């Protein structure tokens, strides 16, 4: 079953074509990687899916239902969680309270929302930091907090925007294990934007490569890293994976 369908999506900003005629599908239960050089339009695509921008043309279907005219909160309620590349913690709130905001979407009672939040914080290794102010967290922890908040909304599809950037390899492996477990045990579908190829190769079953707002290649990780166009514009000749 296809969970998310992006069809001929285009978006321009003052004449700059950020995304041009992009189409791809995300089958339920899969992990799809979105890669490409800086400025390729990856985050713009996320913002189009999450409802931050309205597309100039094209459509986004989630569970066969068009969502490109909905607001971000409606899209979240429909079952799409997202993280921000430039992390946006609720700085003045504690780590637990940050996650509680997300948990309140499906759990209206404070006690149930709290239980869900604590469980997610444990999963992401933030359990001991739950009473700290979010502003006191290091960048890797803030990225984890982004993930925790999004997970607390109990999404069917999770959009991860460069959550591994800045993590040490061991931390990166830890969080990769968390996503793999969520994907395996709960059937969570994930689309991730990532520059850390180690993580993409470890997680993604399919990869879509963007360049100048257009899809230049797609396929399994093995196919993509051998693709000439991808090697030229993004990965470079010496990429080791």
């Amino acid at each position: 079953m296809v969970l998310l369908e992006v069809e001929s999506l285009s978006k321009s900003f003052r004449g700059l074509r950020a995304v041009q005629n992009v189409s791809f599908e995300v089958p339920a239960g899969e992990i799809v990687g979105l890669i490409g050089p800086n400025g390729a339009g990856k985050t713009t695509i996320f913002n189009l899916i999450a409802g931050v921008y309205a597309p100039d043309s094209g459509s986004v279907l989630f569970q066969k239902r068009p969502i490109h005219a909905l607001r971000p909160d409606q899209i979240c309620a429909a079952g799409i969680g997202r993280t921000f590349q430039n992390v946006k913690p609720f700085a003045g709130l504690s780590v637990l309270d940050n996650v509680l905001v997300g948990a309140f979407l499906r759990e209206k009672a404070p006690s149930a929302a709290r239980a869900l939040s604590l469980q997610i914080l444990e999963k992401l290794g933030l359990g001991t930091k739950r009473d700290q102010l979010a502003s006191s967290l290091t960048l890797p922890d803030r990225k984890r907090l982004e993930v925790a908040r999004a997970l607390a909304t109990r999404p069917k599809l999770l959009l991860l925007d460069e959550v591994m950037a800045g993590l040490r390899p061991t931390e990166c492996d830890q969080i990769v294990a968390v996503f793999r477990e969520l994907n395996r045990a709960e059937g969570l579908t994930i689309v991730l934007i990532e520059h850390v190829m180690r993580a993409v190769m470890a997680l993604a079953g399919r990869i879509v490569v963007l360049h100048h707002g257009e899809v230049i290649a797609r396929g399994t990780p093995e196919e993509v890293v051998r693709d000439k166009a991808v090697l030229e514009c993004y990965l470079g000749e010496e990429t080791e994976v």
Partner: protein
Amino acid sequence: MIRGLLEGVPRRGLAMLAALLALLLAFPFFASGYLLAVGFLILYFAYVGQAWNIMMGFAGQLSLGHSLYVGLGAYAAAALYVHFGVSPWVGLGASIAVCAAAGAVIGFLAFRFGVGGVYFAILTIAFAEFARIGFDHFTWVRGSSGLFLPVANYTENDLWNLRGSPRMFYYLMLGLTAGAFVLCHALLRSRMGYYWLAIRESPEAAQALGVNLFRYKMVAVVVSAAMTSLAGVVFAFYYNNLFPEQIFHISRSIELILGPIIGGIGTLVGPLVGALLLTGLAEGMGELMLALGVDIPGVKQVFYGICLLLVVMFLPDGVWPPLARALRLDRKGKD
């Protein structure tokens, strides 16, 4: 429900609150008429500060026009009483309705059309100014010549018509302030409270977590306006006269937000501490000057200015957060 309200509140905090309440309850028995009036003012500012704090401190929406809700609330109940002899307890229903509607109109205009930040603040000033000028020409409430409530010497307190001694008004205001405190405490622990804080901290992130920004900002404005209207009703029946030039004036809006700013924006206790500090010290200052035989006009304003300056420079989060840490009443005090 009471257990839910008390959950997680440090024992020391509860004990101190109980002591404070006892002190405030006993205050009229040993206070002079003047001190009682000061006490009333402190409670009044603590209450309106708490109401304003819902919008700014919780939901992050800066209102510089809260005198609008004080004024509309005051005029609605007072006019019904003067013209039709309607009890203020019934009239306050009209006050709440009028203020909630005014808040909803301002909120709708701002949030529907993406007016935020300082532009939102300007919009709130504009509406308060409309009201000030409009009420100057509103003859049903006597326009600029002022609306007066009938005053007589009362031998007994008439609580139903809010005619009576300053002591009665003091207790009424105390009840409102205590009620607002409990209400805000409960709101902060609710889903709505968390959504407000999230909107204050980062609207984009809040929206991405499923928070309907328009709806929750609207609720914040309407609740804050409705609460403020009650202060207006008490104000009208306490002072017995209303002038548009005074009650809707921007200086009144500024005056009522200083308490929570000095005390600590977004905190529950901040509005109380701020009101106590500002009103208490300003009045004390006046007394001191009088005792010293110095008569300088504007001393109170200068004092406000100095207080604000000091707090902004040295206590950017207000007086309460560091005080709470010193008293070990903050969250970390439990560890």
